[in-house]
């Protein structure tokens, strides 16, 4: 029966299908990274534009460099520390050994998210500034146990007399360690190092919680960017695949070359690896410095530092805004993205520092109350005069003492007028979201604020109500919608979803509606008669900003015609610059025919959100309950 050593035809088919399953996504990434179109599903010709975009985007390149540097450093440190600890452990008393093994198991056996929040709270408690150091410490922390796990079995199978023999023959303890023990357990050390490297290179959850201040790795970047279709992610991923493939090939080829070299009687293989490693580190470090390298000394002289840390919403800036600003002022901008005001607020509270933030109205109000913002120096902001009429004298900051509007708009309903009768939309307003004719055909924006706004307005209440009965009624309204309509809750994905016509009805921000209407002419926009949320996002400088001068320069720059035009054209949101607003919505303008671009003004049922942290928390919890109900 020796013939069963061959794989049968059924087995071969199974393996082939498995490989398709494993490699399809990877192939997909690579193919779509060269796709000219923005679509995730349709190929539109060959193009390198996403690569250009990626390489031009210093945030992306920095993430790559950070990922590699952190992975290398964490691997080296945890491999050395783990090996030494494992050797020490193998000689320790049993009690200590058991305790250490148990504690070591914690990071391995605990869900990552638990480890992550533990570290987050720990770092906050001792007041370390989150960023490179915390990220590195966390990575070393979770890599080391894996190294030990890989080294310990080799140590156990080691002849216990080996070290004694070395000492007997005159080796010092250190020599015994490096010349006898370490070479014996080398396979364990190498596989431990490999595990450590992949763990670190791939880590998302722990990194996501412990980093900050603009330091992010590829995983975090992909996560924050993935809300909207962004083929640059594919380009970035292809780059990662390339790096890994090259690395694996090197790891497999170098030993072969080394063997050949040794066979030829020459040494130096080890040196070669060490040199290669040193080279990679040096390159990476140079890379980091290099990104800062294009700034000029004058910038330092003028602003005190040449780096601006910007914390903005994802996909919320014109294509060239950052690059143009960097060039014009000879500075460097580090951008980090958030996907909710609360997330930004939490980060800030946890001690992260940024120079410019772009929060929304109510959040600005809260931050003003919490003394988290700096008063703006209007002498540094001559372009304030350009502000559009609609964003002057906003209730939360009428004199722009703390904030300068960035984008503004409302919330309304986008619907496919081929499938949904406009008359019905106009008659039912938000109630259409509970019209079971459209069951399974709706998107709802995944935010407690906007969802409750919708429900409260539908019920005829104020969206700022504190009346418990009204809130309860709204909760039940949403629950009913959730249970009867099979809604899909989305954030920025709504844009692409509606452009491709996946659903018929969506509640969206007017700016997103602008983009949707531009791309898909089957779509129409309706501002419900029940009233809506008039919102604005504005630029502020937090109290702990490290470079307020440059922050003012940036805010002033955003208000210029060129920057505002770039922003509004690319993102589709309503500009805070009157000239740009007029031009884009004018007869010749890009958005001339687009009913979503200019927000409704002066309608009495429209409101602006007021900050109310307690209410906010209640709504947040109610909202997650709505979503979780099935």
């Amino acid at each position, binding site marked *: 029966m020796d013939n069963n*050593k*061959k*794989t049968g035809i059924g*087995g071969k088919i*199974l393996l082939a299908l*498995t490989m398709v399953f*494993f490699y399809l*996504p990877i192939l*997909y990434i690579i193919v*779509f990274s060269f796709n000219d179109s923005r679509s*995730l*599903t*349709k190929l539109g010709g060959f193009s390198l534009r996403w690569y250009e975009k990626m390489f031009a985007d210093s945030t992306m390149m920095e993430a790559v460099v950070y990922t590699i540097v952190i992975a290398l450093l964490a691997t080296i440190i945890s491999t050395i520390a783990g090996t030494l600890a494992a050797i*020490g*452990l193998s000689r320790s008393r049993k009690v*200590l050994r058991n305790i*250490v093994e148990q*504690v*070591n198991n*914690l990071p391995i*056996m605990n*869900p990552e*998210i*638990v480890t992550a*929040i*533990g*570290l987050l*709270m*720990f770092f906050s408690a001792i007041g370390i500034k989150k960023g490179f150091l915390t990220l590195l*410490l966390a990575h070393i*922390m979770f890599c*080391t146990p894996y190294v030990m796990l890989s080294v310990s079995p080799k140590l156990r199978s080691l002849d216990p007399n080996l*070290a004694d023999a070395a000492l007997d023959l005159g080796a010092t303890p250190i020599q015994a360690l490096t010349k006898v023990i370490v070479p014996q357990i080398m396979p364990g050390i190498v596989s431990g190092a490999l595990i450590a490297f*992949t763990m670190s*290179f*791939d880590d*998302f959850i722990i990194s996501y*919680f412990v980093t900050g201040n603009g330091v992010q790795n*590829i*995983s975090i970047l992909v*996560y924050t960017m*993935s809300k909207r279709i962004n083929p640059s992610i594919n380009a970035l*991923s292809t780059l*990662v695949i390339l790096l890994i493939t090259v690395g*694996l090939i090197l790891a497999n080829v170098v030993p072969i070359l080394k063997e050949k070299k040794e066979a030829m009687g020459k040494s130096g293989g080890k040196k070669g690896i060490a040199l290669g490693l040193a080279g990679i580190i040096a390159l990476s470090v140079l890379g980091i410095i290099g990104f800062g390298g294009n700034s000029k000394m004058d910038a330092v002289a003028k602003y005190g530092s040449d780096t601006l840390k910007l914390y903005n919403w994802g996909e919320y800036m014109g294509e060239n805004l950052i690059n143009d600003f960097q060039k014009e002022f000879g500075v460097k901008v580090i951008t980090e993205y958030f996907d909710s005001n*609360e*997330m930004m*607020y*939490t980060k800030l509270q946890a001690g992260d520092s940024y120079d410019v933030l772009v929060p929304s109205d109510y959040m600005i109000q809260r931050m003003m109350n919490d003394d988290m913002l700096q008063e703006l120096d209007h002498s540094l902001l001559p372009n304030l005069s350009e502000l559009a009429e609609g964003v002057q004298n906003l209730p939360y900051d009428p004199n722009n003492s703390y904030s300068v509007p960035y984008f503004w708009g409302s919330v309304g309903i986008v619907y496919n007028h081929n499938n949904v009768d406009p008359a019905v939309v106009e008659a039912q307003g938000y109630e259409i979201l509970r019209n079971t004719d459209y069951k399974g055909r709706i998107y709802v924006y*995944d935010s407690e604020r906007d969802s409750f706004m919708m429900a409260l307005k539908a019920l005829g209440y104020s969206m700022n109500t504190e009346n418990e009965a009204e809130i309860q009624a709204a909760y039940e309204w949403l629950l009913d919608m959730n249970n009867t309509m099979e809604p899909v809750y*989305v954030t920025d994905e709504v844009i692409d979803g509606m452009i*491709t016509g996946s659903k018929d009805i969506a509640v969206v921000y007017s700016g997103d509606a602008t983009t949707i209407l531009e791309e898909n002419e089957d779509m129409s926009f309706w501002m419900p008669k029940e009233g809506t949320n008039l919102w604005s996002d504005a630029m502020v400088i937090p109290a702990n900003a490290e470079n307020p001068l440059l922050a003012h320069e940036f805010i002033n720059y955003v208000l210029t015609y060129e920057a505002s035009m770039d922003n509004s054209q690319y993102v589709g949101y309503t500009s805070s610059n009157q000239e740009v607003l007029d031009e884009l919505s004018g007869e010749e303008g890009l958005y001339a025919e687009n009913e979503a671009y200019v927000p409704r003004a002066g309608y009495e049922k429209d409101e602006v959100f007021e900050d109310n942290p307690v209410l906010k*928390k209640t709504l*947040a919890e109610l909202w*997650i*309950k709505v*979503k*979780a*109900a*099935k």
Partner: protein
Amino acid sequence: MRQFRNMIYPYVGWLAVMVVVPMLMILLYAFTTAGNEVTTFRFTLDNFVRFLTDAVFLDVLKRSLLIAVATTIICVIFGYPIAYVIAKGPERSGFFWIMLITLPTWINMLVRTYAWVGILQDDGLLNGFLGLFGIGPFHMIHTTFAVVLGMVYNFVPFMILQIHASLAKMDRSLIEAANDLGANPVQSFLRVTLPLSLPGVLSGITLVFLPAVSSFFIPKLLGGGQYVLVGNVIETQFLTSGDWNFGSAISLIMAVIIMLSMWLTRKVDTDPAAGGKGA
């Protein structure tokens, strides 16, 4: 060789600071109320009560466990035959297949999961392919199917590797002995191969169940915003609501559940009765 013994002490210190202290902080936060100052420290069970008395949160927990269990079962059903075919095949090609299976795990999990977002779209690659045969289109993205698929995709290599390791190290003469004693191929698989590979299956289960139950980016990317699992609730508490005490309590509940299930798994593993008198 006492001289190497001292090398453990720095690591013990490191463990205490970087592992034990953070865990204690979770405990501390879980049992206290928000806004505690050192002076007004107040212990409470409110956070646990709040979670465990709320039907919605219990539903979330139940759903997370169900998804994780489903993922684990599918991984076993899918992973076992693959591991078996590889282990039974020639050794050199086995090495090659294992290498091929390991390779994608080197590439960022998020990146690979993100690719599925495109593949599973209503007008995506998979529906396009099925369309060639006149099947579909199916709505897949933002469904339980998509979430489970994403989890299986990410975690099944761990299962395959574990099962393969246990099958590969199995002495071939055991199968021969079973044949020799009158067992046909099916019988020798059921009575010898399967029971002997159980430890591999069990450690595979641990490696799949653990990340599946706490994952939050797979449901978020592939399930959409309405797909709330425990991991998402914890993330929200920490990064959006800022309620660290409640978040810590939920984490603790989850950690306890996982520890319990692993303890159970191990008990099955070491219990001689489990592999005892089969017939």
